[in-house]
């Protein structure tokens, strides 16, 4: 895939390295000449194409081939910039997938299709989710929102009183709009099948769509 990353901070450079390693063609844009010169000189991440310029300018995006890009990721430390890059990518270049980083959770409400964002990632929200996950047993923790909140990845650690214990997955009565995607047990990942039996202490990852979260909660938490 052809990936353009706006913002060559630690997030952008890390992503570029990972994506390049998995065989994608990556271009990094940054408007800091020191950062770009350093990246070019040290050739890190390996194989990445560097571009010195303002990713909020159509001309810059044109010069790095946004019209052919499969993905644009706007991961600068500035939410305004990320929104502008997202909107331009969608509006001027019809990029199929636009990913944007949310720096301040207060701004997350704007990161949707109105601004051309297909997927937004908010580090603070993710961290809150992970902290909640670590401290709560027997409650329903939202980990990730997909498609602007239409689908959610949630996690439940089964407490002693959970109605789901010792039941097979098919007998849990989960709504059709949800599916168990993984069960973490004693440090192993159990790939869920219909006949997988749940135990106390299992971490159950569920993909939930639509408004069935309450039904899922009832089936797993009680």
């Amino acid at each position: 895939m052809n990936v353009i990353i706006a913002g060559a901070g630690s997030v952008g450079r890390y992503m570029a390295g990972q994506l390049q390693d998995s065989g994608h063609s990556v271009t990094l844009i940054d408007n800091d000449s020191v950062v770009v010169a350093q990246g070019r000189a040290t050739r890190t991440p390996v194989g990445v194409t560097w571009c010195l310029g303002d990713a909020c300018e159509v001309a810059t995006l044109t010069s790095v081939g946004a019209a052919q890009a499969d993905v644009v990721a706007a991961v600068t430390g500035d939410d305004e910039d990320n929104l502008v890059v997202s909107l331009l990518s969608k509006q001027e270049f019809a990029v199929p997938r636009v990913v944007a980083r949310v720096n301040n959770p207060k701004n997350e409400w704007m990161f949707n299709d109105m601004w051309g964002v297909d997927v937004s990632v908010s580090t603070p929200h993710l961290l809150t989710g992970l902290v909640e996950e670590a401290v709560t047993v027997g409650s329903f923790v939202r980990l990730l929102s997909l498609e602007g909140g239409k689908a959610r990845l949630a996690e439940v650690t089964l407490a002693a009183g959970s109605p789901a214990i010792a039941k097979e997955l098919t007998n849990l009565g989960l709504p059709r709009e949800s599916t168990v995607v993984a069960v973490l047990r004693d440090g192993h990942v159990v790939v869920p099948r219909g006949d997988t039996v749940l135990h106390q202490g299992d971490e159950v990852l569920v993909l939930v769509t639509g408004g069935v979260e309450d039904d899922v909660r009832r089936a797993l938490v009680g």
Partner: protein
Amino acid sequence: MSLLRRKHENVPPDTIEPPKSTPISETQPRQHVSISGRVIRMTARPTSGQPALLISISDDTGTVTAVWTGRREIGGVTLGRKIAINGVPVMRGDHLEFTNPNYTLLPR
């Protein structure tokens, strides 16, 4: 640009010829293009709770949709109106969709 210049030169608006347009059936995704046709459908929709105006434009060869975000109406854009738009369309399901394209209202 040429429109601006013409305005500046006080050319009466009805002498402005419509931008050269491509038949809708020949429109390719992700290629910058101008098309023109009639508005055959208008929908104001909430997009994740925020407003958007969605219209379908049809010429003799096909139909495309255009979405303008952040608004529920555009003055002069009504059902049956002839309109020209230019922008970069993306394939959405079985039709092409423009996001916030430039538009020109054409004489009826």
